[in-house]
């Protein structure tokens, strides 16, 4: 009992937990229901490196003790204690067992490996949150599908050729599938499983 008499330094989470979490939840909900639109969050003020603001807000807002989460190796190493303290979500090693997954793009797990729900319960699927270098308006890709009036132009370095191939496959198994949230600094955008992505403007 006496071996650990002090606890390590930690970064704070939301300064106004109720309002900040509501704002972040609203941002995430809007981003996912209107795929390709960009939302920004203002909190937490000082997320622990390497987490950036929108990524930290997503972790704090989406997860609790009921949601198994998977953190990429670099996130787990640098912010595992912070997540345990502020969120208290069980952490899993196997990406297939997680409800929410958080990673920078270079450590992204394959969509193939994630829980996609079942035909009867497609809502029991995983949500993958990826930190990118680019999330924004641009003419790189065209999004269509529910939540998009006709089409929406979108750009992100997450949408590689490999990703687009997997995304097609992710859509083929509808209603099962994985939803994706892309973050970049304090900005975030949603790519639900219903969104079709086509290269080009």
């Amino acid at each position, binding site marked *: *009992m*006496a071996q650990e008499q*002090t606890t390590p330094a*930690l970064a704070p989470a939301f300064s106004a937990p109720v309002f900040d979490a509501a704002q972040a939840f609203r941002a995430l909900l809007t981003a996912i229901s209107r795929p390709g639109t960009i939302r920004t969050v203002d909190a937490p003020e000082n997320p622990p490196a390497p987490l950036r603001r929108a990524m930290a807000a997503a972790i704090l807002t989406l997860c609790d003790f009921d949601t198994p989460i998977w953190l990429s190796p670099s996130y787990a190493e640098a912010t595992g204690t912070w997540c345990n303290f502020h969120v208290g979500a069980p952490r899993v090693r196997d990406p297939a067992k997680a409800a929410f997954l958080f990673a920078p793009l270079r450590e992204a797990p394959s969509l193939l490996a994630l829980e996609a729900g079942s035909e009867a319960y497609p809502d029991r699927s995983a949500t993958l949150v990826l930190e990118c270098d680019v999330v924004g308006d641009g003419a790189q890709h065209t999004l269509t599908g529910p939540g998009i009036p006709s089409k929406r132009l979108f750009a992100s370095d997450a949408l590689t050729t490999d990703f687009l191939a997997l995304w097609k496959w992710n859509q083929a198994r509808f209603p099962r599938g994985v939803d994706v949230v892309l973050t970049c600094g304090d900005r975030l955008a949603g790519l639900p499983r219903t969104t079709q992505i086509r290269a080009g403007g």
Partner: protein
Amino acid sequence: MSATGKEAASPKPFDRAAVISTLARASQRELSAALDAIGQPDGWSWLRAPETGLVMVRGRIGGGGPPFNLGEASVTRASVQLRGGQTGHAYALSRNRKAAGDAALLDALWQTEAREEVEDSILRPVRSRIATQDALEEAEAAATTVDFFTLVRGDD
């Protein structure tokens, strides 16, 4: 809740769990008096501002038997961080946010060079108050004890 009369008798230094447990049982007045005496640390921040929630209190009849839910109790928790990086935590039964915040600060201060002051100004007094209270309650309860015994029945 391990701060019982038996512990109070031995003058061994506190360990962290005992510190937090003792601070949880200190009153708001005791906590703010101690904090006034030691002085607020400069440059601390909330790691988790005081917040009140519920915990389910469970019991077992006679200390054995299957556990049952007795009811929910209000618990307030708070965590602070000093400039030096020491973090203090507090969980206490009550809805008193000020008390939880003060208790967390004192727990953080206990990890600094102010440890002796924390022990002298709050931990020892509170521990002896709790011991006195416990002894009083035990004495009151003991006065009403009924020792049952069975007379030998002459039917065999």
